[in-house]
């Protein structure tokens, strides 16, 4: 992690699009709900929603991004995306993401990158996973039942608290 150039979560997570209680009960529904939320706040092109959802689902089928501990990070590059953008979703009941540890997923970071942004993508994945590795962060995220609470948690993480 670069000391001078550490990327912050809130640089690419769209606060307004955060979904504190997903209605979705399946992986594919959750992906659609989160991409639609990004579209609804104007973060991505509405016309590209179906295509992006299909690409994310296809990516999950080649290998789950549910890397364990109740979190999943579905991600894809897409030509319609001009600026790296992400959204956080929380599932109260848990979702089957075919996770590596076979456990349900309660917290989702969905990340969309433009083409040709490999380095930026790795920086974002680094900052996301650096936080998701922390037991406290995961626990608080799972308990954050409003958009504001999730934003507060992400901002605290960015501040290094």
């Amino acid at each position: 992690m670069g000391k001078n150039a550490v990327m912050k979560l809130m640089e690419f997570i769209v606060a307004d699009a955060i979904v504190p209680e997903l209605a979705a009960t399946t992986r594919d529904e959750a992906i659609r709900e989160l991409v639609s939320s990004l579209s609804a706040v104007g973060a991505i092109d509405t016309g590209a929603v179906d295509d992006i959802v299909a690409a994310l689902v296809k990516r999950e089928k080649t290998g789950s991004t549910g890397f364990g501990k109740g979190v999943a990070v579905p991600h894809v590059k897409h030509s319609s995306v001009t600026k790296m953008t992400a959204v956080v979703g929380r599932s109260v009941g848990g979702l089957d993401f075919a996770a590596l540890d076979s456990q349900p997923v309660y917290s989702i970071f969905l990340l969309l990158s433009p083409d040709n942004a490999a380095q930026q993508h790795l920086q974002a994945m680094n900052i996301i996973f650096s936080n998701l590795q922390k037991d406290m962060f995961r626990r608080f995220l799972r308990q954050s039942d409003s958009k504001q609470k999730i934003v507060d948690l992400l901002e605290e993480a960015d501040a290094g608290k």
Partner: protein
Amino acid sequence: MTAVTRDIIILNSLGLHARPAMQFVDLANQFQANITVHKEAGPDGVEAATVDGKSVMQMITLEATQGTSLRIEAEGDDAEEAVEQLAKLVEDKFGEEE
């Protein structure tokens, strides 16, 4: 027991993103040896890091872009073979490119 180490360079253009990290960890988990991956501190404030080569989440936090040097270290009965195969996976660009 002595540790086996090997210096490698990430060659594939997308770097060590989720899928290659996954491949690395899948392979690492086939060995009994303890496997760690180390990144040296670099310019621009890049911090040194040592992570568990059997954890996808930890491997992704290496933020290893194309050209990044890493040191694989394995300790255990099958350490030699583990390092050999892991280095080959990286050298083969995780099968992503010709």
